[in-house]
């Protein structure tokens, strides 16, 4: 998977025509992880048709009726989202960075995360608890792991690497640290917040 390469939105960095997409599928993108594929035209066109259908499905999904400006105020105020999440240069890095959440997640998915945060936790957003042999516990978002070490960002935004052999306990947290906002926000406020989050597409690239 190429980070940031979400193919479901109907917008592509290198081309937006069907013919251009066919060419990319067949010839790849030099200098990137996208390899050429030895596919005849009709098969490449089938893939393009699938990508287009995903985009259409997304467009016909949940309509976001909220007000993004009000949603921003909720994010920064009543929702207190910045205590865990970061947008641009503001907020905490402890939770997932939401600067381009609107480019990678759909409105319905975001709304579900607000109402049922435990329903689907992406693997990259899992939290762990590590307790050292001295009893010191560290909770953080898992960044990486191997048979001997664990990497995480903790509640103080420190990038830490722990040695498994020196831990007496290591566990994944079953529940997301994210609270459910179903009853904390009104439906209108939640719609505003979703509208704001959908508008976050990352930084502009010239």
């Amino acid at each position, binding site marked *: 998977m190429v980070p940031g390469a979400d193919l479901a939105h109907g917008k592509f*960095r290198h081309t937006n025509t069907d013919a251009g997409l066919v060419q990319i599928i067949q010839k790849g993108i030099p200098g990137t992880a996208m390899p050429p594929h030895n596919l005849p035209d009709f098969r490449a066109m089938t893939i393009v048709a699938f990508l287009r259908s995903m985009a259409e499905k997304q467009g016909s999904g949940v309509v976001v009726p909220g007000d993004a400006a009000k949603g921003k105020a909720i994010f920064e105020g009543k929702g207190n989202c910045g205590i865990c999440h*970061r947008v641009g240069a503001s907020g905490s890095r402890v939770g997932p960075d939401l600067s381009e959440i609107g480019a990678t997640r759909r409105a319905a998915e975001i709304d579900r995360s607000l109402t049922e945060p435990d329903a689907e936790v992406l693997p990259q957003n899992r939290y762990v608890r590590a307790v*050292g042999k001295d009893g*010191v516990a560290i909770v953080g978002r898992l960044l990486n792991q191997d048979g001997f*070490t664990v*990497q995480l*960002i903790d509640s103080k935004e420190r*990038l830490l690497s722990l040695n498994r052999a020196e831990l007496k306990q290591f566990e994944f947290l079953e529940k997301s640290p994210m609270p459910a906002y179903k009853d904390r926000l009104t439906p209108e406020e939640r719609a505003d917040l979703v509208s704001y989050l959908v508008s976050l597409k990352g*930084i502009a690239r*010239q």
Partner: protein
Amino acid sequence: MTMRLVLLTAMCGTVSAQVTFDRILHAEREPQNWLTYSGTPLSQRYTLLNQITPANAANMELQWVWQARSLEKFEATPLVVDGVMYTVQAPNDVVALDAATGRVFWIWSYIPSQESRVCCGRVNRGLAILGDTLYMGTIDAHLVAIDAKNGKPLWDNRIGKPESGYSLTHAPLIVKDKVIVGVAGGEYGIRGFIAAYDAKTGAEAWRFNTIPGPGEAGHETWLNDAWKTGGGSIWVTGSYDADLNLTYWGIGNPGPDWNGDPRPGDNLYTDSVVALDADTGKLKWHYQFSPHDEFDYDSVEVPVLADVEWRGAPRKIMYWANRNGLFYAIDRENGQFLSGKPFVEVNWMNGFDERGRPMRIPGKVPSTEGTLIYPGNQGGTNWYSPSFSSHTGLFYISTWAGYSSLYVKRVDEYKEGNQYNGGTPRSPVPFTRSSQNFRKADEGYGAVRAIDPKTGERKWEFRMSDITEAGILTTASDVLFSGGREGYFYALDARSGALLWKANLGGSISAGPMSYSVGGRQYVSISAGNSLFTFALRQ
């Protein structure tokens, strides 16, 4: 609990501390870190860490390897900040690693424009950091800011047209609240510049044109409108003197490279060092090493700053081993030429006039039938970082010795986005590593040469078979680290050049070594091939 965890917990305040400019300016106070491309703004690539010594260097062993998912040359020098290493996977993916284990914290992938074009590899030489933000130049001429904690982009500023050949390959330099970079692309007939950008927003604060336009000082050194395609790349990071508030940058060759006929004149500020006011970008002084260059002798070297006693009086000196084969000492307050002496074979000049201008040897110019010139096209040295040890007082250079090129010139028409070279240099030494080496010694070889910078006299040489593209690191304990195209990584005695230890890393070494410590243990990192290797003493 683990010693590391205890340490990290205890060091909470330090670990979370932002990298202020004051920390960068005084980076020598925290040798456990490597906060800027050459170690400190003085660019000596010298560390005060002294755990590894000539007596125990033979006990070094591999600690970890990080293999990049890239087949490009791995030229980046990593940064290390409080146990976290930051480097670049070519061409432009930023990586955060645990400095003690090499395990990845995060990777941010940047996809350069398909329009980007670079003469000499889709490479990157490293990052800069200020606060919690990393800065990187890209091969499609963007300057980007990335959150150092989570690898998310903060701003992205396109500063040149990649379709015209503009690119960025060097690590940015931080001065106060600004990020300073210069564009490359001299082989495509760009008009080069150095510019400073606001670290918070990416907005341009000042710009210095390395090829002066109408009304700018030095424009008179260009005729025939040749300034419009004059080149003047920046390939490596500059230096900074806080007392003088001057930032120093070496500037690349004029375009076209090997045929000077379309561009009569000295072609300022190509092949020069410029001293710029760090707040305004205004030129304080310049010195041109190779006026009207036709040998691709761009001044693609790191300016090395040292405060030393010079002929009986303290002086602020800039040492410079130039691609043109000469080692220079320059007064960095005013640009006065103090001395210049060959450190490899040189046949294009035979001395200096009273102002420090090289005296050319008639006939030693590119020709249609070819003219043999020493040093050859890749130079006596090149972008590979030298080192100055204040402990030994010696200056160390990665050299291509006994190396020449046959310079053949031709007439090229400028066409935007195409290479604009004006000829072809030919040499027995290939530009890239070949799988086998059949050359005789007099056809060129690599060497680390130690010279007394006050006299230019060679003190010792460590000779290789193939040439070297590796930088040099020296330590306060008189160990010198370097490598070569053969793939060996060496520890030498900085006092004598004696081999202390070596490791065969397989791939060509095309980067500068650096050193840091975590938990009181000294590490040395070097990239070779497409991997990053880190060594320490056996425990």
